[in-house]
Protein backbone atom coordinates (compact mmCIF):
# COMPACT_ATOMS: atom_id res chain seq x y z
CA UNK A 1 0.00 0.00 0.00
CA UNK A 2 1.47 3.43 -0.88
CA UNK A 3 2.29 5.54 2.12
CA UNK A 4 -0.31 8.14 1.22
CA UNK A 5 -3.08 5.52 1.22
CA UNK A 6 -1.85 4.16 4.53
CA UNK A 7 -1.95 7.64 5.98
CA UNK A 8 -5.51 8.15 4.72
CA UNK A 9 -6.69 4.91 6.29
CA UNK A 10 -4.99 5.69 9.59
CA UNK A 11 -6.47 9.17 9.67
CA UNK A 12 -10.02 8.08 8.94
CA UNK A 13 -9.79 5.19 11.41
CA UNK A 14 -8.53 7.50 14.13
CA UNK A 15 -11.40 9.87 13.42
CA UNK A 16 -13.75 6.96 13.99
CA UNK A 17 -12.03 5.40 17.00
CA UNK A 18 -11.25 8.52 19.02
CA UNK A 19 -14.81 9.88 19.37
CA UNK A 20 -16.08 6.37 20.13
CA UNK A 21 -13.53 6.14 22.91
CA UNK A 22 -14.51 9.62 24.11
CA UNK A 23 -18.14 8.51 24.07
CA UNK A 24 -17.38 5.44 26.20
CA UNK A 25 -15.18 7.48 28.53
CA UNK A 26 -17.98 10.04 28.82
CA UNK A 27 -15.97 12.97 27.45
CA UNK A 28 -18.53 14.87 25.37
CA UNK A 29 -16.14 17.83 25.03
CA UNK A 30 -13.67 15.70 23.10
CA UNK A 31 -16.43 14.50 20.80
CA UNK A 32 -17.40 18.08 20.09
CA UNK A 33 -13.77 18.97 19.45
CA UNK A 34 -13.50 16.15 16.91
CA UNK A 35 -16.80 17.22 15.36
CA UNK A 36 -15.27 20.64 14.79
CA UNK A 37 -12.25 19.00 13.17
CA UNK A 38 -14.50 17.03 10.83
CA UNK A 39 -16.53 20.10 9.87
CA UNK A 40 -13.39 22.18 9.33
CA UNK A 41 -12.07 19.34 7.22
CA UNK A 42 -15.13 19.55 4.95
CA UNK A 43 -14.65 23.31 4.61
CA UNK A 44 -11.00 22.74 3.76
CA UNK A 45 -11.81 20.02 1.23
CA UNK A 46 -14.09 22.54 -0.44
CA UNK A 47 -11.34 25.15 -0.64
CA UNK A 48 -8.87 22.52 -1.80
CA UNK A 49 -10.92 21.90 -4.95
CA UNK A 50 -10.29 25.51 -5.99
CA UNK A 51 -6.89 26.06 -4.38
CA UNK A 52 -5.24 22.69 -4.64
CA UNK A 53 -6.67 21.31 -7.86
CA UNK A 54 -7.27 24.56 -9.72
CA UNK A 55 -4.53 26.73 -8.23
CA UNK A 56 -7.09 29.43 -7.42
CA UNK A 57 -5.89 31.25 -4.32
CA UNK A 58 -9.24 32.23 -2.85
CA UNK A 59 -9.02 34.27 0.30
CA UNK A 60 -12.78 34.62 0.40
CA UNK A 61 -14.13 31.22 1.27
CA UNK A 62 -15.55 32.63 4.49
CA UNK A 63 -18.30 33.97 2.21
CA UNK A 64 -19.53 30.44 1.53
CA UNK A 65 -18.87 29.16 5.03
CA UNK A 66 -20.88 32.05 6.46
CA UNK A 67 -23.60 31.73 3.86
CA UNK A 68 -24.10 28.09 4.81
CA UNK A 69 -24.20 29.16 8.44
CA UNK A 70 -26.80 31.84 7.84
CA UNK A 71 -28.94 29.49 5.75
CA UNK A 72 -29.14 27.25 8.79
CA UNK A 73 -29.64 30.20 11.15
CA UNK A 74 -32.36 31.89 9.15
CA UNK A 75 -34.34 28.75 8.30
CA UNK A 76 -34.19 27.48 11.87
CA UNK A 77 -35.00 30.93 13.28
CA UNK A 78 -38.20 31.13 11.26
CA UNK A 79 -39.10 27.59 12.25
CA UNK A 80 -38.57 28.24 15.95
CA UNK A 81 -40.50 31.52 15.89
CA UNK A 82 -43.25 30.07 13.68
CA UNK A 83 -42.96 32.99 11.28
CA UNK A 84 -42.73 32.50 7.54
CA UNK A 85 -39.52 33.55 5.82
CA UNK A 86 -41.54 35.26 3.13
CA UNK A 87 -45.12 35.23 1.93
CA UNK A 88 -44.92 37.19 -1.30
CA UNK A 89 -44.76 36.08 -4.09
CA UNK A 90 -44.97 32.62 -2.59
CA UNK A 91 -44.83 31.23 0.90
CA UNK A 92 -41.49 30.05 2.25
CA UNK A 93 -41.40 28.75 5.77
CA UNK A 94 -38.51 27.96 8.05
CA UNK A 95 -37.41 24.42 8.68
CA UNK A 96 -35.61 22.38 11.29
CA UNK A 97 -34.80 19.54 8.94
CA UNK A 98 -31.09 19.11 8.39
CA UNK A 99 -31.31 17.53 4.93
CA UNK A 100 -33.38 20.45 3.66
CA UNK A 101 -31.04 22.96 5.28
CA UNK A 102 -27.99 21.24 3.79
CA UNK A 103 -29.53 21.26 0.35
CA UNK A 104 -30.42 24.95 0.54
CA UNK A 105 -26.95 25.76 1.91
CA UNK A 106 -25.27 23.88 -0.93
CA UNK A 107 -27.42 25.45 -3.62
CA UNK A 108 -27.12 29.01 -2.33
CA UNK A 109 -23.36 28.78 -1.74
CA UNK A 110 -22.94 27.35 -5.21
CA UNK A 111 -24.88 30.26 -6.68
CA UNK A 112 -22.85 32.78 -4.68
CA UNK A 113 -19.64 31.09 -5.78
CA UNK A 114 -20.82 31.14 -9.36
CA UNK A 115 -21.46 34.89 -9.19
CA UNK A 116 -18.28 35.77 -7.28
CA UNK A 117 -16.23 33.41 -9.42
CA UNK A 118 -17.64 34.77 -12.68
CA UNK A 119 -16.43 38.24 -11.68
CA UNK A 120 -13.18 37.37 -9.94
CA UNK A 121 -12.01 34.95 -12.62
CA UNK A 122 -11.95 37.76 -15.14
CA UNK A 123 -8.66 38.49 -13.40
CA UNK A 124 -5.93 36.30 -11.99
CA UNK A 125 -3.04 36.30 -9.56
CA UNK A 126 -3.06 38.96 -6.85
CA UNK A 127 -6.18 40.59 -8.22
CA UNK A 128 -8.04 37.33 -7.70
CA UNK A 129 -6.84 37.08 -4.11
CA UNK A 130 -7.83 40.64 -3.26
CA UNK A 131 -11.20 40.43 -4.99
CA UNK A 132 -12.30 37.19 -3.35
CA UNK A 133 -11.22 38.68 -0.03
CA UNK A 134 -13.21 41.84 -0.71
CA UNK A 135 -16.39 40.01 -1.67
CA UNK A 136 -16.29 37.97 1.53
CA UNK A 137 -15.82 41.20 3.45
CA UNK A 138 -18.95 42.54 1.74
CA UNK A 139 -20.98 39.72 3.25
CA UNK A 140 -19.35 40.40 6.60
CA UNK A 141 -20.33 44.06 6.67
CA UNK A 142 -23.75 43.31 5.25
CA UNK A 143 -24.66 40.88 8.04
CA UNK A 144 -23.11 43.26 10.55
CA UNK A 145 -25.45 46.06 9.51
CA UNK A 146 -28.56 43.99 8.71
CA UNK A 147 -30.57 44.04 11.93
CA UNK A 148 -33.29 41.49 11.07
CA UNK A 149 -31.16 38.47 11.96
CA UNK A 150 -29.30 39.82 14.95
CA UNK A 151 -26.75 42.02 13.21
CA UNK A 152 -23.53 42.08 15.15
CA UNK A 153 -24.91 39.84 17.91
CA UNK A 154 -25.71 36.96 15.60
CA UNK A 155 -28.54 34.51 15.86
CA UNK A 156 -29.06 31.72 18.38
CA UNK A 157 -30.99 28.54 17.76
CA UNK A 158 -32.43 26.82 20.83
CA UNK A 159 -32.44 23.23 19.68
CA UNK A 160 -30.19 21.58 17.13
CA UNK A 161 -31.95 20.77 13.87
CA UNK A 162 -33.30 17.32 13.30
CA UNK A 163 -32.34 14.39 11.14
CA UNK A 164 -34.78 11.51 10.59
CA UNK A 165 -34.10 8.63 12.95
CA UNK A 166 -31.35 10.33 14.98
CA UNK A 167 -31.16 12.31 18.18
CA UNK A 168 -28.91 15.13 16.94
CA UNK A 169 -28.49 16.59 20.44
CA UNK A 170 -26.52 13.50 21.38
CA UNK A 171 -22.89 14.46 20.57
CA UNK A 172 -21.88 11.07 19.23
CA UNK A 173 -24.92 10.82 16.96
CA UNK A 174 -24.35 14.28 15.55
CA UNK A 175 -20.71 13.35 15.11
CA UNK A 176 -21.70 10.24 13.18
CA UNK A 177 -23.75 12.42 10.86
CA UNK A 178 -20.83 14.78 10.21
CA UNK A 179 -18.42 11.89 9.71
CA UNK A 180 -20.79 10.34 7.19
CA UNK A 181 -20.94 13.60 5.27
CA UNK A 182 -17.16 13.88 5.39
CA UNK A 183 -16.88 10.43 3.82
CA UNK A 184 -19.37 11.36 1.12
CA UNK A 185 -17.56 14.59 0.30
CA UNK A 186 -14.21 12.80 0.28
CA UNK A 187 -15.56 10.14 -2.06
CA UNK A 188 -16.89 12.76 -4.43
CA UNK A 189 -13.71 14.85 -4.43
CA UNK A 190 -11.55 11.75 -4.81
CA UNK A 191 -13.56 10.67 -7.83
CA UNK A 192 -13.42 14.20 -9.21
CA UNK A 193 -9.65 14.33 -8.86
CA UNK A 194 -9.29 11.22 -11.04
CA UNK A 195 -12.05 12.09 -13.50
CA UNK A 196 -11.69 13.92 -16.82
CA UNK A 197 -12.59 17.15 -15.05
CA UNK A 198 -9.85 16.69 -12.48
CA UNK A 199 -7.25 15.96 -15.13
CA UNK A 200 -8.14 19.00 -17.21
CA UNK A 201 -8.45 21.30 -14.19
CA UNK A 202 -5.03 20.23 -12.92
CA UNK A 203 -3.63 20.88 -16.37
CA UNK A 204 -5.11 24.38 -16.34
CA UNK A 205 -3.36 25.00 -13.01
CA UNK A 206 -0.05 23.90 -14.48
CA UNK A 207 -0.35 25.48 -17.90
CA UNK A 208 -3.33 27.41 -19.21
CA UNK A 209 -1.94 27.67 -22.73
CA UNK A 210 -1.82 23.89 -22.93
CA UNK A 211 -5.48 23.58 -22.01
CA UNK A 212 -6.51 26.10 -24.66
CA UNK A 213 -4.30 24.31 -27.19
CA UNK A 214 -6.19 21.06 -26.63
CA UNK A 215 -9.49 22.82 -27.18
CA UNK A 216 -10.74 23.67 -23.71
CA UNK A 217 -11.34 26.96 -21.89
CA UNK A 218 -9.56 27.43 -18.57
CA UNK A 219 -12.20 29.95 -17.47
CA UNK A 220 -15.01 27.40 -17.67
CA UNK A 221 -12.95 24.85 -15.76
CA UNK A 222 -12.03 27.35 -13.05
CA UNK A 223 -15.56 28.62 -12.67
CA UNK A 224 -16.94 25.09 -12.31
CA UNK A 225 -14.27 24.22 -9.76
CA UNK A 226 -14.89 27.43 -7.83
CA UNK A 227 -18.63 26.74 -7.74
CA UNK A 228 -18.18 23.19 -6.46
CA UNK A 229 -15.65 24.46 -4.01
CA UNK A 230 -18.04 27.08 -2.63
CA UNK A 231 -20.88 24.58 -2.37
CA UNK A 232 -18.83 22.16 -0.25
CA UNK A 233 -17.59 24.93 2.03
CA UNK A 234 -21.18 26.15 2.35
CA UNK A 235 -22.28 22.72 3.54
CA UNK A 236 -19.55 22.85 6.17
CA UNK A 237 -20.83 26.26 7.26
CA UNK A 238 -24.33 24.90 7.82
CA UNK A 239 -22.92 22.05 9.91
CA UNK A 240 -20.70 24.40 11.91
CA UNK A 241 -23.65 26.64 12.73
CA UNK A 242 -25.66 23.60 13.77
CA UNK A 243 -22.83 22.40 15.99
CA UNK A 244 -22.74 25.73 17.81
CA UNK A 245 -26.47 26.41 17.40
CA UNK A 246 -25.32 29.93 16.67
CA UNK A 247 -24.35 32.07 13.69
CA UNK A 248 -22.73 35.48 13.66
CA UNK A 249 -20.90 37.71 11.18
CA UNK A 250 -17.62 36.25 12.49
CA UNK A 251 -18.20 33.31 10.18
CA UNK A 252 -17.75 35.76 7.31
CA UNK A 253 -14.61 37.41 8.69
CA UNK A 254 -11.38 37.23 6.77
CA UNK A 255 -9.76 35.34 9.64
CA UNK A 256 -12.18 32.52 8.83
CA UNK A 257 -10.99 32.55 5.23
CA UNK A 258 -7.41 32.47 6.46
CA UNK A 259 -8.11 29.59 8.81
CA UNK A 260 -9.79 27.49 6.12
CA UNK A 261 -6.70 28.09 4.03
CA UNK A 262 -4.52 27.00 6.95
CA UNK A 263 -6.35 23.65 7.14
CA UNK A 264 -5.45 23.06 3.51
CA UNK A 265 -1.83 24.13 3.89
CA UNK A 266 -1.08 22.27 7.11
CA UNK A 267 -2.36 19.05 5.56
CA UNK A 268 -0.91 19.43 2.10
CA UNK A 269 -2.23 21.43 -0.84
CA UNK A 270 -3.88 19.39 -3.56
CA UNK A 271 -4.04 16.13 -1.59
CA UNK A 272 -7.57 14.80 -1.35
CA UNK A 273 -7.20 13.93 2.34
CA UNK A 274 -4.87 16.85 3.09
CA UNK A 275 -7.48 19.18 4.62
CA UNK A 276 -8.62 16.39 6.96
CA UNK A 277 -5.10 16.04 8.34
CA UNK A 278 -4.78 19.83 8.37
CA UNK A 279 -7.98 20.41 10.33
CA UNK A 280 -7.06 17.74 12.87
CA UNK A 281 -3.59 19.23 13.24
CA UNK A 282 -5.06 22.73 13.60
CA UNK A 283 -7.34 21.68 16.45
CA UNK A 284 -4.53 19.73 18.10
CA UNK A 285 -2.39 22.88 17.96
CA UNK A 286 -5.24 24.97 19.31
CA UNK A 287 -5.82 22.47 22.09
CA UNK A 288 -2.18 22.10 23.08
CA UNK A 289 -0.88 25.62 22.44
CA UNK A 290 -4.10 27.16 23.69
CA UNK A 291 -3.45 25.36 26.95
CA UNK A 292 0.04 26.86 27.16
CA UNK A 293 -0.84 30.47 26.55
CA UNK A 294 -3.90 32.58 25.87
CA UNK A 295 -1.85 34.18 23.10
CA UNK A 296 -1.53 30.91 21.19
CA UNK A 297 -2.07 32.61 17.84
CA UNK A 298 1.56 33.78 18.09
CA UNK A 299 2.65 30.15 18.04
CA UNK A 300 0.13 29.30 15.34
CA UNK A 301 1.62 32.10 13.26
CA UNK A 302 5.12 30.76 13.88
CA UNK A 303 4.08 27.22 12.90
CA UNK A 304 2.43 28.54 9.76
CA UNK A 305 5.54 30.54 8.85
CA UNK A 306 7.63 27.44 9.38
CA UNK A 307 5.41 25.36 7.13
CA UNK A 308 5.41 27.98 4.39
CA UNK A 309 9.15 28.60 4.49
CA UNK A 310 10.43 25.11 5.15
CA UNK A 311 7.78 22.40 4.70
CA UNK A 312 5.68 23.39 1.74
CA UNK A 313 4.02 20.00 1.29
CA UNK A 314 2.38 20.16 4.71
CA UNK A 315 1.85 17.03 6.78
CA UNK A 316 1.26 14.83 3.75
CA UNK A 317 4.39 16.18 2.11
CA UNK A 318 6.43 15.32 5.19
CA UNK A 319 4.98 11.88 5.79
CA UNK A 320 4.04 10.63 2.34
CA UNK A 321 6.63 12.36 0.19
CA UNK A 322 6.06 14.19 -3.04
CA UNK A 323 2.73 13.60 -4.71
CA UNK A 324 3.12 10.77 -7.17
CA UNK A 325 1.85 11.30 -10.65
CA UNK A 326 -0.44 8.31 -11.03
CA UNK A 327 -2.04 6.96 -14.13
Amino acid at each position, binding site marked *: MPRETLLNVLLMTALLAFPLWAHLADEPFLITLTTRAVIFAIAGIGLNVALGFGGLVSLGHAAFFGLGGYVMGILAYHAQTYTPLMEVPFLIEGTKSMPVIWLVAIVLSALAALAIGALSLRTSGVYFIMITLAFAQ*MFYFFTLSWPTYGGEDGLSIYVRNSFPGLNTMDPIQFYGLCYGLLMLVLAFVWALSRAPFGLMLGAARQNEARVAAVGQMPYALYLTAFTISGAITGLAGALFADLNRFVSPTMFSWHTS*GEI*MIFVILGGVGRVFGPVAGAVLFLLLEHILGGLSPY*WHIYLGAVL*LGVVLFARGGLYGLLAGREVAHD
Partner: protein
Amino acid sequence: MTLPLFIEQTLNGVQFGVMLFLMAAGLTLIFGVMGLINLAHGALYMVGAFAAAATAAATGSFILALAASVVFAAFAGVLVETLIIRRLYGRDHLDQVLATFALVLIFAEGTRWVFGSFPLFLDKPDWLSGTVMLPFGIEYSLYRLAIILVGLVVAAGLFWLIGRTRVGMQIRAGENDREMIAALGVNISRLYTLVFALGAGLAGFAGALIGAIQSVQVGMGDSVLILAFVVIVIGGIGSIKGAFVGALLVGLTDTLGRQLLPMFFALFMEPAAATSTGASLASMAIYLLMAAVLILRPKGLFGGA
Protein backbone atom coordinates in the same frame (compact mmCIF):
# COMPACT_ATOMS: atom_id res chain seq x y z
CA MET B 1 -30.06 67.02 2.27
CA THR B 2 -28.88 70.51 2.81
CA LEU B 3 -25.87 71.82 0.95
CA PRO B 4 -23.72 72.32 4.07
CA LEU B 5 -24.39 68.74 5.18
CA PHE B 6 -23.52 67.49 1.73
CA ILE B 7 -20.26 69.43 1.69
CA GLU B 8 -19.42 68.22 5.17
CA GLN B 9 -20.02 64.61 4.15
CA THR B 10 -18.00 65.12 1.00
CA LEU B 11 -15.12 66.40 3.10
CA ASN B 12 -15.45 63.36 5.35
CA GLY B 13 -15.30 61.19 2.26
CA VAL B 14 -12.17 62.96 1.06
CA GLN B 15 -10.60 62.61 4.49
CA PHE B 16 -11.34 58.87 4.49
CA GLY B 17 -10.05 58.58 0.94
CA VAL B 18 -6.81 60.37 1.71
CA MET B 19 -6.12 57.99 4.60
CA LEU B 20 -6.92 55.01 2.40
CA PHE B 21 -4.45 56.38 -0.09
CA LEU B 22 -1.65 56.30 2.47
CA MET B 23 -2.38 52.60 2.99
CA ALA B 24 -2.96 51.73 -0.64
CA ALA B 25 0.12 53.60 -1.89
CA GLY B 26 2.43 51.40 0.15
CA LEU B 27 0.63 48.21 -0.83
CA THR B 28 0.63 49.03 -4.49
CA LEU B 29 4.31 50.07 -4.46
CA ILE B 30 5.30 46.89 -2.68
CA PHE B 31 3.38 44.86 -5.18
CA GLY B 32 4.60 46.84 -8.15
CA VAL B 33 8.28 46.73 -7.23
CA MET B 34 8.67 43.42 -5.41
CA GLY B 35 5.67 41.49 -6.73
CA LEU B 36 4.59 40.81 -3.16
CA ILE B 37 1.06 40.72 -1.79
CA ASN B 38 1.36 41.84 1.81
CA LEU B 39 -1.53 41.02 4.15
CA ALA B 40 0.54 42.30 7.08
CA HIS B 41 0.23 45.88 5.85
CA GLY B 42 -2.77 46.37 8.13
CA ALA B 43 -0.66 45.19 11.04
CA LEU B 44 1.84 47.99 10.32
CA TYR B 45 -1.04 50.47 10.40
CA MET B 46 -1.89 49.10 13.83
CA VAL B 47 1.74 49.27 14.96
CA GLY B 48 1.80 52.96 14.00
CA ALA B 49 -1.34 53.68 15.98
CA PHE B 50 -0.11 51.86 19.08
CA ALA B 51 3.30 53.50 18.89
CA ALA B 52 1.59 56.89 18.67
CA ALA B 53 -0.76 56.17 21.55
CA ALA B 54 2.06 54.92 23.79
CA THR B 55 4.29 57.88 22.91
CA ALA B 56 1.51 60.39 23.47
CA ALA B 57 0.78 58.82 26.84
CA ALA B 58 4.44 59.02 27.82
CA THR B 59 5.34 62.47 26.50
CA GLY B 60 2.05 64.24 25.99
CA SER B 61 3.23 65.46 22.61
CA PHE B 62 1.11 64.77 19.57
CA ILE B 63 3.88 65.66 17.15
CA LEU B 64 6.25 63.22 18.85
CA ALA B 65 3.49 60.63 18.72
CA LEU B 66 3.15 61.06 14.96
CA ALA B 67 6.90 60.85 14.52
CA ALA B 68 6.97 57.69 16.62
CA SER B 69 4.24 56.12 14.50
CA VAL B 70 6.27 56.55 11.34
CA VAL B 71 9.55 55.48 12.93
CA PHE B 72 8.16 52.40 14.68
CA ALA B 73 6.11 51.21 11.74
CA ALA B 74 9.03 51.72 9.36
CA PHE B 75 11.32 49.93 11.81
CA ALA B 76 8.86 47.04 12.14
CA GLY B 77 8.71 47.01 8.36
CA VAL B 78 12.49 46.76 8.01
CA LEU B 79 12.55 44.03 10.63
CA VAL B 80 9.99 41.76 8.98
CA GLU B 81 11.35 42.55 5.53
CA THR B 82 14.86 41.44 6.36
CA LEU B 83 13.83 38.48 8.51
CA ILE B 84 10.92 37.02 6.57
CA ILE B 85 9.45 38.95 3.65
CA ARG B 86 12.73 38.82 1.76
CA ARG B 87 12.43 35.05 1.45
CA LEU B 88 9.05 35.42 -0.23
CA TYR B 89 9.86 37.57 -3.25
CA GLY B 90 10.48 34.68 -5.58
CA ARG B 91 7.67 32.57 -4.14
CA ASP B 92 4.17 32.14 -5.52
CA HIS B 93 1.27 34.21 -4.26
CA LEU B 94 -0.09 31.44 -2.08
CA ASP B 95 3.11 31.36 -0.03
CA GLN B 96 3.07 35.13 0.28
CA VAL B 97 -0.54 35.13 1.43
CA LEU B 98 0.11 32.45 4.03
CA ALA B 99 3.33 33.87 5.39
CA THR B 100 1.98 37.40 5.66
CA PHE B 101 -1.23 36.05 7.20
CA ALA B 102 0.98 34.34 9.77
CA LEU B 103 2.57 37.74 10.42
CA VAL B 104 -0.90 39.23 10.92
CA LEU B 105 -1.60 36.62 13.61
CA ILE B 106 1.76 37.23 15.27
CA PHE B 107 1.44 41.03 15.22
CA ALA B 108 -2.15 41.04 16.47
CA GLU B 109 -1.54 38.59 19.26
CA GLY B 110 1.80 40.15 20.15
CA THR B 111 0.17 43.55 20.48
CA ARG B 112 -2.59 42.07 22.61
CA TRP B 113 0.07 40.49 24.79
CA VAL B 114 1.93 43.79 25.29
CA PHE B 115 -0.97 46.24 25.49
CA GLY B 116 -3.87 44.03 26.57
CA SER B 117 -7.25 43.70 24.89
CA PHE B 118 -8.66 47.07 25.85
CA PRO B 119 -8.55 49.87 23.31
CA LEU B 120 -6.11 52.71 23.91
CA PHE B 121 -6.99 56.31 23.29
CA LEU B 122 -4.99 58.83 21.41
CA ASP B 123 -6.26 62.34 22.00
CA LYS B 124 -6.24 65.06 19.44
CA PRO B 125 -4.00 67.90 20.56
CA ASP B 126 -5.76 70.99 21.86
CA TRP B 127 -4.53 73.09 18.98
CA LEU B 128 -6.30 70.83 16.55
CA SER B 129 -9.53 70.41 18.51
CA GLY B 130 -12.72 72.22 17.79
CA THR B 131 -14.09 73.37 14.50
CA VAL B 132 -13.40 75.88 11.80
CA MET B 133 -15.84 77.93 9.80
CA LEU B 134 -15.72 77.26 6.09
CA PRO B 135 -17.53 79.19 3.35
CA PHE B 136 -21.32 78.64 3.08
CA GLY B 137 -21.51 78.65 6.87
CA ILE B 138 -20.10 75.17 7.25
CA GLU B 139 -18.66 74.28 10.59
CA TYR B 140 -16.09 71.54 10.13
CA SER B 141 -13.79 69.61 12.45
CA LEU B 142 -10.37 71.25 12.46
CA TYR B 143 -8.64 67.92 13.00
CA ARG B 144 -10.30 66.27 10.00
CA LEU B 145 -9.42 69.26 7.86
CA ALA B 146 -5.83 68.99 9.06
CA ILE B 147 -5.79 65.28 8.17
CA ILE B 148 -6.96 66.08 4.65
CA LEU B 149 -4.24 68.68 4.23
CA VAL B 150 -1.49 66.54 5.71
CA GLY B 151 -2.63 63.58 3.64
CA LEU B 152 -2.57 65.66 0.47
CA VAL B 153 0.88 67.00 1.31
CA VAL B 154 2.17 63.47 1.88
CA ALA B 155 0.55 62.34 -1.36
CA ALA B 156 2.20 65.22 -3.23
CA GLY B 157 5.52 64.34 -1.60
CA LEU B 158 5.12 60.76 -2.71
CA PHE B 159 4.36 61.74 -6.29
CA TRP B 160 7.45 63.96 -6.20
CA LEU B 161 9.57 61.18 -4.73
CA ILE B 162 8.47 58.64 -7.34
CA GLY B 163 8.45 61.01 -10.27
CA ARG B 164 11.39 63.33 -9.67
CA THR B 165 14.08 61.78 -7.53
CA ARG B 166 16.80 59.25 -8.11
CA VAL B 167 15.26 56.75 -5.72
CA GLY B 168 11.96 57.21 -7.46
CA MET B 169 13.59 56.49 -10.78
CA GLN B 170 14.98 53.26 -9.37
CA ILE B 171 11.56 52.33 -8.03
CA ARG B 172 9.94 52.93 -11.40
CA ALA B 173 12.69 50.95 -13.08
CA GLY B 174 12.06 48.15 -10.60
CA GLU B 175 8.40 48.08 -11.57
CA ASN B 176 9.20 47.76 -15.23
CA ASP B 177 12.21 45.56 -15.36
CA ARG B 178 13.82 43.87 -12.41
CA GLU B 179 16.87 42.70 -14.28
CA MET B 180 17.61 46.09 -15.68
CA ILE B 181 17.96 47.80 -12.35
CA ALA B 182 20.48 45.17 -11.32
CA ALA B 183 22.33 45.96 -14.51
CA LEU B 184 22.24 49.64 -13.59
CA GLY B 185 24.17 48.76 -10.48
CA VAL B 186 21.38 49.46 -8.02
CA ASN B 187 21.56 47.52 -4.79
CA ILE B 188 18.26 45.70 -5.20
CA SER B 189 18.09 44.25 -1.77
CA ARG B 190 18.53 47.71 -0.23
CA LEU B 191 15.98 49.21 -2.60
CA TYR B 192 13.44 46.57 -1.61
CA THR B 193 13.98 47.17 2.07
CA LEU B 194 13.63 50.88 1.47
CA VAL B 195 10.37 50.54 -0.46
CA PHE B 196 8.99 48.23 2.21
CA ALA B 197 9.99 50.65 4.96
CA LEU B 198 8.43 53.53 3.03
CA GLY B 199 5.14 51.65 2.68
CA ALA B 200 5.24 50.63 6.33
CA GLY B 201 5.93 54.19 7.46
CA LEU B 202 2.99 55.53 5.44
CA ALA B 203 0.70 52.85 6.87
CA GLY B 204 1.87 53.59 10.41
CA PHE B 205 1.33 57.32 9.89
CA ALA B 206 -2.22 56.71 8.65
CA GLY B 207 -2.83 54.49 11.67
CA ALA B 208 -1.78 57.24 14.06
CA LEU B 209 -3.84 59.94 12.34
CA ILE B 210 -6.96 57.75 12.36
CA GLY B 211 -6.19 56.51 15.86
CA ALA B 212 -6.99 59.97 17.17
CA ILE B 213 -10.51 59.82 15.71
CA GLN B 214 -11.29 56.18 16.42
CA SER B 215 -9.94 53.99 19.15
CA VAL B 216 -6.57 52.30 18.96
CA GLN B 217 -7.13 48.56 19.14
CA VAL B 218 -5.94 45.21 17.92
CA GLY B 219 -7.46 44.31 14.58
CA MET B 220 -8.00 47.98 13.62
CA GLY B 221 -5.87 47.42 10.52
CA ASP B 222 -7.87 44.53 9.12
CA SER B 223 -10.80 46.31 7.57
CA VAL B 224 -8.58 49.16 6.36
CA LEU B 225 -6.32 46.61 4.71
CA ILE B 226 -9.20 45.08 2.81
CA LEU B 227 -10.50 48.51 1.80
CA ALA B 228 -7.02 49.32 0.54
CA PHE B 229 -7.20 46.16 -1.57
CA VAL B 230 -10.50 47.35 -3.01
CA VAL B 231 -8.80 50.67 -3.79
CA ILE B 232 -5.98 48.91 -5.59
CA VAL B 233 -8.31 46.68 -7.58
CA ILE B 234 -10.22 49.77 -8.68
CA GLY B 235 -7.14 51.85 -9.41
CA GLY B 236 -4.99 49.14 -10.96
CA ILE B 237 -2.09 47.35 -9.31
CA GLY B 238 1.21 49.17 -9.22
CA SER B 239 -0.22 52.55 -10.12
CA ILE B 240 0.20 55.31 -7.54
CA LYS B 241 -2.13 57.53 -9.51
CA GLY B 242 -4.66 54.70 -9.62
CA ALA B 243 -4.34 54.29 -5.86
CA PHE B 244 -5.05 58.00 -5.38
CA VAL B 245 -8.12 58.08 -7.62
CA GLY B 246 -9.34 54.73 -6.28
CA ALA B 247 -8.92 55.85 -2.67
CA LEU B 248 -10.95 59.01 -3.21
CA LEU B 249 -13.63 57.08 -5.07
CA VAL B 250 -13.91 54.51 -2.31
CA GLY B 251 -13.83 57.13 0.44
CA LEU B 252 -16.55 59.23 -1.18
CA THR B 253 -18.73 56.26 -2.18
CA ASP B 254 -18.64 54.83 1.31
CA THR B 255 -19.23 58.08 3.20
CA LEU B 256 -21.86 59.50 0.89
CA GLY B 257 -23.53 56.10 0.50
CA ARG B 258 -24.02 55.86 4.24
CA GLN B 259 -25.55 59.31 4.26
CA LEU B 260 -27.58 59.25 1.09
CA LEU B 261 -28.94 55.70 0.83
CA PRO B 262 -31.01 55.81 4.04
CA MET B 263 -32.40 59.19 2.93
CA PHE B 264 -33.19 57.72 -0.45
CA PHE B 265 -35.11 54.80 1.02
CA ALA B 266 -36.90 57.14 3.43
CA LEU B 267 -38.67 58.60 0.41
CA PHE B 268 -40.84 55.49 0.15
CA MET B 269 -40.26 53.40 3.28
CA GLU B 270 -40.86 53.53 7.00
CA PRO B 271 -38.07 55.53 8.68
CA ALA B 272 -36.71 52.59 10.68
CA ALA B 273 -36.81 50.22 7.73
CA ALA B 274 -35.26 52.88 5.51
CA THR B 275 -32.39 53.37 7.92
CA SER B 276 -31.59 49.68 8.18
CA THR B 277 -32.03 48.96 4.48
CA GLY B 278 -30.00 52.00 3.54
CA ALA B 279 -27.24 51.17 6.00
CA SER B 280 -27.04 47.55 4.86
CA LEU B 281 -26.84 48.53 1.22
CA ALA B 282 -24.36 51.30 1.95
CA SER B 283 -22.07 48.73 3.54
CA MET B 284 -22.02 46.95 0.17
CA ALA B 285 -21.65 50.06 -1.99
CA ILE B 286 -17.88 50.04 -2.43
CA TYR B 287 -17.85 46.34 -3.26
CA LEU B 288 -20.48 46.92 -5.90
CA LEU B 289 -18.32 49.75 -7.21
CA MET B 290 -15.43 47.30 -7.37
CA ALA B 291 -17.58 44.76 -9.20
CA ALA B 292 -18.60 47.40 -11.73
CA VAL B 293 -14.99 48.37 -12.39
CA LEU B 294 -14.11 44.69 -12.80
CA ILE B 295 -16.79 44.24 -15.41
CA LEU B 296 -15.73 47.31 -17.36
CA ARG B 297 -11.96 47.30 -16.79
CA PRO B 298 -10.67 44.06 -15.26
CA LYS B 299 -7.19 45.54 -14.81
CA GLY B 300 -8.45 48.59 -12.95
CA LEU B 301 -8.84 52.19 -14.04
CA PHE B 302 -5.11 52.85 -14.38
CA GLY B 303 -3.85 49.30 -14.79
CA GLY B 304 -1.80 48.21 -17.77
CA ALA B 305 -3.64 46.77 -20.73
